[in-house]
């Protein structure tokens, strides 16, 4: 009896230890494309919005979706300048930050979905940005850059540029001014 109980106990504990209590689900179809490759996920502060990048004929493109419905939210300023990478969202998803390609340069952009405005971060010519992280309240932006072959993280103050997007703020429906919801 003990010989039977011991392996069962070990299996149960192993299951708990590897996260058996976690509830999981797939983020679902990427805008109607079931088997599309989806990368670099970023959730808004309370998980109502999911940003990721997906392969499209126009190149790697930022996709913003409501959760859990999967409804695609159109963005005003991220229709072009592919490939897009490293999306990041504020608490209520008012701000969407990502890297885009403009000419020969990778450029960090922040779209304000409430006002429809676009903010571009100008970096020194010898800084190539690789990753972004927007703080949830939109007060700071961290940019991973490569400079002289070395990877560095640089912090930027957005206070005075962006209004804070605090927890409990109003969620924005649709893609903001000029964009069909």
């Amino acid at each position, binding site marked *: 009896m003990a010989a039977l109980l011991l392996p069962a106990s070990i299996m149960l504990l192993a299951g708990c230890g590897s*996260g058996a209590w976690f509830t999981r689900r797939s983020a679902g179809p990427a805008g109607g494309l079931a088997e599309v490759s989806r990368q670099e996920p970023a959730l808004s502060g309370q*998980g109502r919005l999911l940003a990721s990048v997906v392969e499209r004929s126009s190149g790697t493109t930022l996709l913003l979706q409501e959760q859990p419905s999967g409804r695609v939210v159109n963005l005003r300023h991220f229709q072009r300048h592919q490939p897009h990478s490293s999306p990041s969202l504020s608490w209520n998803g008012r701000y969407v930050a990502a890297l885009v390609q403009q000419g020969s340069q990778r450029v960090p952009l922040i779209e304000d979905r409430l006002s429809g405005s676009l903010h571009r971060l100008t970096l020194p010519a010898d800084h190539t940005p690789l990753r972004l992280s927007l703080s949830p309240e939109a007060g700071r932006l961290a940019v*991973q850059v490569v400079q002289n072959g070395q990877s560095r993280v640089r912090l930027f103050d957005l206070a005075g540029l962006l209004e804070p997007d605090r927890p409990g703020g109003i969620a924005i429906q649709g893609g903001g001014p000029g964009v069909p919801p």
Partner: protein
Amino acid sequence: MRVPLHAMATVTLLALTQLLGSCMGPMPRPIGPLNSRLEALGANREPSLSGRWLALISGRGGREQVMLLDLVNQQAQFLSGLNRADAQPLSVSIDAAGEKIALVRQLEGRTELVLYRRSLQSLQPIAMVPDGVPKAVQLQADGRQLAVQVSRNGIWQVDLVQIP
């Protein structure tokens, strides 16, 4: 006195740049003291900002480890039990409370996702179900859910994992 053409062009360009700058309104400003602090850490990557916290992967002496910086007092926080000499961190993310850190790392030939709770100094593996190889993770700011990029059968997928 004749002014050389290229000098005039330079002055005009600078004036236009200033004019454009003023039209574009306030610009993001580098945070000097914090950037100096980061510079002193050496090479670093995979930043994750949330609340007063910055988590990142920092290299020291050829070895990389997860580092947590309190942006208010600019102090690095001790992460007991998170970093291992034989593990290679790949992706890191922190919640706004600074309590939970999600980490993708390579350890003993496997790539795994783990959740670290600072108050408990506990490390909990999160299995990929169905089986898959995690690559990148992001915790939502309230710490209740994470999104993880997983490779399954050659396709990148995104799983959402609720955290109790």
